[in-house]
């Protein structure tokens, strides 16, 4: 055990693992986080807390993580490279682990152009892979500069993202490999809305034996509307929505219900896919749907580990 988090234990146990996501609010109202934590409690091993997602200023992920701990939910702290240099990041990692947070997910971060402060300066002192390496060094007792820690090293279970839907396709597998090499323990993928491409990617992953080196959680996002599906497909870089899903939503009488159907089918399908350790359910601004999806796919109740 590297950090002994619930997420790590579940993944190690070989059970099909579930993680969720909570977006902190654009305010200091911690009750919103608490509300979501109570609603989702017991459905997931761990909950990602986004770090100023899409470069919009929000309640900090570590502070939100503290609220989750109070609610007996396990946080997965996201850290993006956009806003902090290696000094600030290491300091935050020490702080988060001191508060009892054990999972940290390393990301490059969306460019600030998309956020509410497009005129700000970005940092990118390190990139996501370098960040993984820094965290791996820290849990082994070293700071990024190579200096040995005088005290007990932080215990961290390191996560990263993988995007099978970005280009160049073949290199996406290499990039995951680099993340595994850097020390990542698990990866959560971009939401799978094109199963065919995802399967091709998994084939390449398995061919390199990567699924044995890093736990892969497939991203699941229930589609809420046809418009959103089309928008994601066309305008969001690194996202793909298959025509099949768009057609199904267009034909459906109850689009939301169909979106949930698709998500549930995907989960059932992924359960059987070799190398998939679980799912990461990202119900963006639709957190309340997570319990239903988990119940319908038999992911609830969660096994004890």
């Amino acid at each position: 055990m590297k950090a002994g988090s619930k997420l790590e234990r579940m993944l190690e146990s070989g059970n099909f693992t579930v993680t969720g996501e909570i977006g902190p609010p654009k305010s200091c109202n911690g009750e919103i986080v608490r509300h979501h934590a109570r609603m989702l409690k017991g459905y997931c091993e761990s909950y990602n807390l986004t770090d100023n997602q899409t470069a919009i200023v929000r309640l900090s992920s570590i502070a939100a993580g503290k609220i989750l701990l109070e609610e007996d939910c396990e946080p997965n702290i996201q850290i993006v490279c956009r806003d902090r240099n290696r000094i600030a990041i290491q300091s935050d990692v020490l702080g988060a682990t001191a508060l009892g947070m054990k999972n940290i997910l390393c990301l490059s971060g969306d460019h600030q152009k998309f956020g509410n402060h497009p005129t700000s300066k970005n940092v990118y002192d390190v990139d996501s892979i370098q960040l993984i390496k820094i965290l791996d060094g820290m849990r082994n007792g070293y700071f990024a500069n190579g200096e040995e820690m005088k005290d007990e090293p932080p215990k961290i279970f390191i996560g990263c993202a993988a995007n099978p839907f970005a280009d160049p396709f073949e290199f996406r597998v290499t990039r995951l490999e680099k993340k595994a090499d850097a020390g990542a323990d698990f990866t959560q993928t971009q939401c799978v809305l094109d199963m065919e491409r995802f399967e091709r990617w998994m084939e390449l992953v398995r061919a390199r034996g990567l699924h044995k080196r890093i736990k892969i959680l497939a991203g699941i996002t229930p589609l809420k509307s046809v418009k959103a599906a089309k928008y994601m497909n066309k305008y969001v870089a690194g996202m793909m929505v298959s025509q099949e899903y768009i057609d199904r939503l267009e034909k459906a009488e109850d689009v939301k219900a169909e979106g949930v159907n698709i998500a549930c089918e995907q989960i059932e399908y992924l359960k059987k896919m070799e190398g998939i350790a679980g799912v990461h359910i990202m119900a963006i601004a639709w957190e309340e749907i997570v319990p239903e999806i988990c119940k319908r796919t038999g992911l609830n109740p969660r096994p004890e580990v």
Partner: protein
Amino acid sequence: MIIAERKPIEEILGLLSKHQKVLVLGCGGCVTVCLAGGEKEVGILSSQLTMARSKEERPLEIVQKTIERQCDFEYFEGIRHIVKDVDAILSLACGIGIQTCAEAFPDKIVWPGVNTKFLGVNLNVGEWAERCQACGQCVLDKTGGICPVARCSKSIFNGPCGGSQDGKCEVSPDTDCAWALIHDRLTRLGEVDSLREILPVKDWSYSRDGGPRKLVREDLELESGK
């Protein structure tokens, strides 16, 4: 090559508002090449300023001059007599030239006439693109001759990030993804496996982050062992 662009005219008019006689000073270096501050631009801008001020019925007298380079002190020697008679200098040089000009004439107001944009290449007449950030420690050997510091929106060293699609950057469909370019070029050269290596964190102390930089080569200095 330094790429610059003339400042908006309102801004320039604002800077010159209290003056009656100014020297519009062009530079024969980069800003001439990038069509922002050479003799022709000096002429056009002067005409524009004259007309604008004449319209306001507050005539502005303009002296036009373009020197070889504004980033070398010696080239300012020849214009001392002109500078003496003007209220201020509007320099169309890059940021370097404007500062050198101000340093050359410590008692004279020197206004910037252009915005210095980036270090780049001239793709075509009227089209320029950034190529270098002068980070002080070149990594082009590792990235197939394409700079991730200058050309990746996030300056990452182990790209492409998840926002790369169809060779374009998530920031804009007009921007090439530098890492897609690197990947494609190394693939063409049969060297793509080199990208499996994790590039270590960069030592930014060679860049601006280490404070204002200065280069001294003692072996070249006129008086050695200073």
